[in-house]
């Protein structure tokens, strides 16, 4: 620690702190334009000038000067104020003072400082800039005339997002923040640059001219797309969510968001939302009252009794999921409930539950940056969880984390500096991980002290016998030496985390893969310690909550697959779908459609009239995350509070209210009087959540842990499927979407409006493709027409398609296998 004096205040700060950090710690505000706490110091704006007694007469920037022992700093002398006013005068010389029409006004650092330092006139005179404004893209408007050259956009894009869309171009007075060849912006559109821009040079187009900053109510809540659990501040006006607001002090991710979180908020106030219950009359869905709809649903559910089944989306809050389970178990006596098609979370519900003793990840997101080595299974970890991807970027670039990727295709992560990618044939992840485990055992790299306390090592050794690197090498297309090197590096790394994304688009990422991954970390003892463990990244905002609360059959009931079969066979009499859209997101669309058409009574409770809801007998309008209170559990088991920002749309009710009303209709009593009571019931029933209180969760939530009972489970890897002349189709998540809900967010749809088939250059050449031709993809299950997208990511013979899109349903060719063999024709 270093001791210094700032404005007569004594402070003690770590030796790597700057004067700016020290002042912040002492509660002294130093004005600054080019600083964000997530970024490296820049020293570009010269607003943070201070005087240090030891460097008499010189004014030095606080943000780039490290502290030294005994420093005496003054931040508010007359000379400094004079200097800062001159800095502002010079900035205002070129800045078009168009505050009345600039969306940043009110939240503009330059405006605030100009006001604070009373810069009313300017001693200098010059012409303003006349750069052309970039209106080309639908999300980010770039007006470089307003730019003050703080460089924050370029730095955040490079340091955290690792995209590098911006850089300063030209020199001297002509210098400006430019893009590739000074053309229009073409990037990931995460909007990080917009969030850090201190002025209005970069603004959000969906929010352009919608409201002034001071008129917005700021409501802190949690994002409802992926399971990263990013905290979010919604800007609300007149009962409408108009934007998301950046707060560098919010959450562990310091306010950093991805394209879905930042620009996909329109689901809350969309015109397309359901606003009234609908009942099918004479084959058509017609508006009805809540009484009518609920009575009809209750009647039919009662009639079905134990033959009723429910599929629920893990986007609901913990309280709602728990109530859903209670409704089926207590009121209907049915155990046939499931979520996310059953398979999407089997890595947690079956894999981790058996191997670790609890159905959750052992690592937290903070472990990523603390690790020495990071093993990512599938490069898709960036696409499914972009903000965790930013953590990986930061780990690799700042903490020198050794990044290894085992993947069937390349991706953004494989482009990171020093990242090593092991590109394998599709569908042989388990064999490959088994070969790694086998190498670790054979080369005696096992952490004997740790594995001594873990059951099943002998069984594992036996199970791994057939998985020598040499044997696996041929099947998976990676050299045996490479497999051995990876195994050695992983075993020898001091701390290592394994990341495994799972979800509806990844049928291969199930129980076996999770257990193979956990075996690896158990063998080397890299679990249960800081910077070590396995992070199984489930898909949706409350996936971990659904798993923790046991939203799957536990007493012999039907799982999702059996429920669909039961609908087709007539053993399921009534199907209750809460937020699920199986017609688009479950594999084998034809089978799902046939099953849904057969079931006697179908209720869909959703935000929008989804493809599935359009087939229902009764549709109940539910509330989005912005309209309700409750809790979500993120991927690292952080239980966080969701806060209501707006009133429900039209007659829509929160899922909690709907389920509670149904429970009352079926049993005569309400299940819970309020959310708090439901939360208390959860804490009593779920051991991991014991002792939590709603108030105790605070703003940042609480990470819950459970003691581990690890055990080795030998798993068998499937042989990769291949056929001459056929392509291996992989499904998954596109960077801009999450599930099927983001299709109703305008931001993501501006950038990625339709499905596509991504294929490599060699294959495109062989098929004589030039650009975005329409291709017919055919499998044994069915066929679909998709636009071609030629890129550098896909190896030869492998194609990729995102599963989100209803208009181009890739699930009409899939049948729930990790890899689907398809033929492609024009």
């Amino acid at each position, binding site marked *: 620690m270093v001791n210094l004096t700032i404005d007569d205040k004594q402070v003690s700060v770590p030796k790597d702190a700057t004067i700016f950090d020290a002042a912040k710690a002492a509660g002294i505000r130093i004005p600054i334009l080019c600083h964000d706490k997530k970024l490296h110091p820049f020293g570009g704006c010269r607003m943070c000038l201070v005087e240090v007694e030891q460097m008499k007469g010189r004014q030095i920037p606080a943000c780039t000067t490290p502290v030294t022992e005994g420093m005496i700093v003054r931040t508010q002398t007359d000379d400094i104020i004079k200097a800062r006013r001159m800095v502002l005068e010079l900035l205002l010389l070129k800045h078009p003072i168009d*505050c*009345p*029409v600039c969306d940043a*006004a009110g939240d503009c650092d330059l405006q605030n400082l100009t006001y604070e330092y009373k810069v009313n006139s300017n001693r200098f005179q010059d012409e303003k800039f006349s750069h052309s*404004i970039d*209106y080309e893209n639908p999300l980010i*408007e770039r007006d470089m005339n307003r730019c003050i050259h703080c460089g924050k956009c370029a730095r955040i894009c490079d340091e955290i997002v690792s995209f590098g869309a911006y850089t300063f171009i030209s020199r001297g007075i002509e210098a400006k923040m430019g893009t590739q060849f000074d053309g229009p912006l073409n990037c990931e559109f995460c909007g990080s640059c917009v969030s850090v821009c201190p002025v209005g040079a970069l603004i959000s187009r969906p929010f*352009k*001219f*919608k*409201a*002034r900053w*001071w*008129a917005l109510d700021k409501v802190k809540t949690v994002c409802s797309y992926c399971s990263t659990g990013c905290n979010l501040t919604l800007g609300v006006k007149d009962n409408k969510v108009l934007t998301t607001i950046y707060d560098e002090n919010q959450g562990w991710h310091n306010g950093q968001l991805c394209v879905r979180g930042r620009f996909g908020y329109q689901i809350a106030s969309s015109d397309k939302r359901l606003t009234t219950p609908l009942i099918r009359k004479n084959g058509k869905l017609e508006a009805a009252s809540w009484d009518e709809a609920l009575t009809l649903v209750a009647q039919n559910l009662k009639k079905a009794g134990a033959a009723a089944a429910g599929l629920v989306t893990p986007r609901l809050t913990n309280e709602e999921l728990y109530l859903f389970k209670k409704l089926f178990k207590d009121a209907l006596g049915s155990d046939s409930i499931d979520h996310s098609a059953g398979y999407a979370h089997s890595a947690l519900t079956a894999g981790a539950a058996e191997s670790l003793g609890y159905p959750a990840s052992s690592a937290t997101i903070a472990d990523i940056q603390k690790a020495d080595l990071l093993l990512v299974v599938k490069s898709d970890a960036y696409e499914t969880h972009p903000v965790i991807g930013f953590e990986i970027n930061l780990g690799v670039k700042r903490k020198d984390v050794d990044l290894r990727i085992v993947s069937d295709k390349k991706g953004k992560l494989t482009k990171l500096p020093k990242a090593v990618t092991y590109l394998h044939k599709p569908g042989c992840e388990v064999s490959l991980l088994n070969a790694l485990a086998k190498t670790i055992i054979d080369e005696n790299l096992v952490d004997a002290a740790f594995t001594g306390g873990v059951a099943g090592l002998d069984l594992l050794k036996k199970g791994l016998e057939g998985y020598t690197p040499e044997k696996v090498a041929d099947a998976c297309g990676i050299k045996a030496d490479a497999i051995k090197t990876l195994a050695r590096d992983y075993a020898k790394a001091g701390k290592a985390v394994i990341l495994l994304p799972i979800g509806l688009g990844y049928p291969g990422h199930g129980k076996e893969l999770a257990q193979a991954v956990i075996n690896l970390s158990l063998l080397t003892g890299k679990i249960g310690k800081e910077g070590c463990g396995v992070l199984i990244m489930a898909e949706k905002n409350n996936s971990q909550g659904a798993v923790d609360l046991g939203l799957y059959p536990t007493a012999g009931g039907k799982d999702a697959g059996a429920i669909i079969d039961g609908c087709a066979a007539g053993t399921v009499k009534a199907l209750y779908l809460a937020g699920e859209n199986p017609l688009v997101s479950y594999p084998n669309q034809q089978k799902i459609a046939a099953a849904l058409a057969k079931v006697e009574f179908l209720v869909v409770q959703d935000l929008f009239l989804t493809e599935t809801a359009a087939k229902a007998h009764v549709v109940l309008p539910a509330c989005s995350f912005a309209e309700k209170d409750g809790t979500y559990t993120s991927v690292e088991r952080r239980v966080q509070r969701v806060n209501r920002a707006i009133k429900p749309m039209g007659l829509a009710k929160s899922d909690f209210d709907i389920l509670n009303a149904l429970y009352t209709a079926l049993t005569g009593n309400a299940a819970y009087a309020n959310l708090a009571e439901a939360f208390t019931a959860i804490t009593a029933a779920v051991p991991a959540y014991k002792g939590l209180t709603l108030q105790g969760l605070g703003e940042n939530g609480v990470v819950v842990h459970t003691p581990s009972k690890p055990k080795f489970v030998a798993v068998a890897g499937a042989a990769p499927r291949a056929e001459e002349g056929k392509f291996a189709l992989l499904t998954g998540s596109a960077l801009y979407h999450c599930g099927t809900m983001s299709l109703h967010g305008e931001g993501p749809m501006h950038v990625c409006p339709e499905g596509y088939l991504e294929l490599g250059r060699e294959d495109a050449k062989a098929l004589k493709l030039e650009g975005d031709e329409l291709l017919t993809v055919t499998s044994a299950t069915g066929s679909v027409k998709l636009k071609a997208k030629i890129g550098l990511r896909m190896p030869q013979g492998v194609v990729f398609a995102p599963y989100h899109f209803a208009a181009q349903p890739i699930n009409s060719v899939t049948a729930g296998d990790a890899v689907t063999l398809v033929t492609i024709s024009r």
Partner: protein
Amino acid sequence: MFTPVPLIKGLLITLKHLFMKPVTLQYPDEKVAPFPRFRGLHALNVSHNRSKCVACYLCPTVCPAKCITVEAAEDDKHDKYASKYEIDLLRCIFCGYCVDACPVDALKMTSAYELASYKRDDFVFTQERLLDKR
């Protein structure tokens, strides 16, 4: 004891006033000419055949009676303009803060004070009615 003196004094005053110029005006036949800085009905200044208002929202922000509704929109040239500008005169207290706040001199207050109407709706002045058409 009764003395007629106060009564006579009073009657004299009355008599005097009979021959003085009246202080009341015969409204509506006669009308008061307002002072130059009188704050009457608002008007939106016009430039290039459209309102000068850039929809900066400063007037609804400063308005103590919350009687101004503005909605901004983007025009063909990507510029900001007021797609809706309404003043609810039933709420307006004619303080003139809106005129003070306007950064582009788009709003002024005229001398019009005859603002009575038969219907409540007629007191909501839309942008079209507020435009200074001279």
